């Protein structure tokens, strides 16, 4: 055989049936499709199972305690006799920490996003973005001890009368933790504003600040609000920092200087202890979980609605 002729032979049309080829491929295709569907179903099943467990256990608790007293009682004293189970103190504690965190994270996150999207040159971005990502990647337990060991003593040297475990320190550090979330989600919203709008404003003699403040920010407002709400939801769900640094006093006080128990911190406290299954204390855990779940679910849904309803459609 002369060199070069093998190739020609290789390309000879086969007599293999089109149907056999298809069914082999079809079987593999069906297997892949089933595998993917199973993975998706697993996520759904886990979620459904989780929610059902929550509803079931929390239901027992609510039958025992009563929905009204759970929602309206002003005390949360599971350890006392008679124990009282009003969610309000835990809710107030949670919102207090989240509010402090927001005061820290929203302005800093927003201004960071404006800087990154409207002011920073390539070099500054290359420096700042990885730093923010690092901030987002720090384990929360590290943040927790940072609050307890660094921030609290610093606060105590400035504000006498502040307790060792307090809402302020935990709130500030939760705020620091969610800055990257606020800034990166807001920056995405800013970057979605078309270049042509900025050019239009620059051409009218707007300064960089006027472009950012009067054009980009209003145009991206829905995205920024959604970012705020998602970050707030993250702050409400944050556990480790508050468990370590905020203390475990469930009370209705808004004072940021005193020990404060959040819903998440209560859940940690209860699950670490030796609470027997089936007791009312054990079930209270699920009632708090349920409340937390509904709260963050509502916030996430609100955030999505805002993005959908108030999104500016550019033409």
């Amino acid at each position, binding site marked *: 055989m002369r060199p070069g002729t093998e190739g020609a032979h290789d390309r000879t049309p086969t007599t293999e049936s089109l149907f056999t080829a298809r069914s082999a491929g079809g079987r593999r295709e069906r297997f892949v499709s089933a595998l993917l569907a199973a993975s998706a179903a697993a996520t759904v099943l886990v979620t459904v199972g989780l929610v059902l467990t929550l509803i079931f256990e929390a239901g027992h608790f609510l039958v025992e305690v009563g929905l009204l007293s759970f929602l309206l009682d002003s005390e949360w004293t599971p350890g006392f006799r008679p124990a009282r189970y009003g969610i309000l103190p835990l809710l107030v504690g949670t919102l207090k920490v989240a509010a402090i965190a927001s005061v820290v994270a929203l302005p800093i996150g927003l201004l960071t996003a404006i800087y990154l999207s409207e002011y920073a040159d390539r070099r500054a971005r290359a420096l700042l973005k990885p730093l923010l990502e690092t901030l987002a990647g720090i384990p929360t337990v590290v943040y927790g001890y940072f609050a307890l060991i660094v921030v609290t003593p610093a606060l105590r040297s400035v504000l006498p009368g502040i307790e060792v475990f307090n809402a302020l320190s935990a709130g500030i550090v939760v705020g620091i933790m969610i800055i990257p979330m606020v800034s990166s989600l807001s920056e995405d919203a800013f970057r979605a504003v078309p270049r042509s709008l900025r050019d239009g404003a620059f051409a*009218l*003699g707007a300064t960089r600040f006027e472009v950012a403040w*009067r054009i980009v920010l209003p145009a991206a407002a829905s995205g920024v609000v959604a970012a705020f709400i998602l970050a707030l939801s993250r702050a409400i769900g944050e556990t480790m920092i508050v468990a370590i640094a905020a203390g475990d006093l469930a009370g209705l006080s808004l004072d940021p200087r005193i020990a404060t128990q959040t819903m998440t911190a209560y859940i940690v406290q209860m699950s670490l202890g030796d609470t027997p299954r089936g007791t009312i204390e054990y079930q209270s855990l699920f009632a708090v979980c349920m409340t937390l779940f509904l709260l963050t679910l509502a916030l996430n849904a609100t955030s999505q609605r805002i993005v959908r309803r108030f999104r500016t459609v550019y033409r």
Partner: protein
Amino acid sequence: MATIHPIPAGDVPALQTEQLSVYYGSNPALRGIDLTVPRNRVVALIGPSGCGKSTLLRCFNRMNELIPEARVEGTVRFNGEDLYGERVDPVNVRRRIGMVFQRPNPFPRSIFDNVAFGPRINGNTTGLAQTVERALRQAALWDEVRDRLNESAYDLSVGQQQRLCIARTLAVRPEIVLMDEPASALDPIATQRIEELIYELKEDYSILIVTHSLQQAARVSDYTAFLYHGELVEYGPTDLIFTNPVEERTEAYVTGRFG
């Protein structure tokens, strides 16, 4: 070498470039442009895509500075002053030399607020309603929007949006209006309205217009500059450029033999 036909003695220069070059990174986009834009005249910049027309236009209001890699060399004079002088604030330049873009880019807010944007950032809010009305009248849009000033600018047709953008530019009371293919996104009727508008506006403004349409250049402009590969090939009165150009490349382009 470029052929620059003399400008009649009665025409006062408003903008002048001397050996103007622009680089994007190390790529030259414009090389050694010498161009004079007389006051209250319409100057058209023509040439094939990528010849540097838009880049040249953006030199006159220092918009090129918003592109990080762009570098401008040479001089641009505005009423004799160096536009790129050390003490010149580009924000001030842009308040006196306005710009209308290729695609209408109204802000996502009301018709009124769009026109009022410039006066507001300049702090000229006394008589704002009159300023807005005057600008909308000048842009031949007033009659269509007088009853719906608070509606979103996005509810206007594309042609109306472009006139709104012209009104927005005029509300700042610039001396010069730069237009970057202002009718390229519009239908023929809207295009005609813009062209009529340009004709009326030259009473009060000097206008520099980049256009892909030779007919448009011939209809609206007093002077035409033909650019090719970043160089100014020929510049002079529009009828001369279109009927009796000196340069072979100009003739080839205006007769449609390339581009």
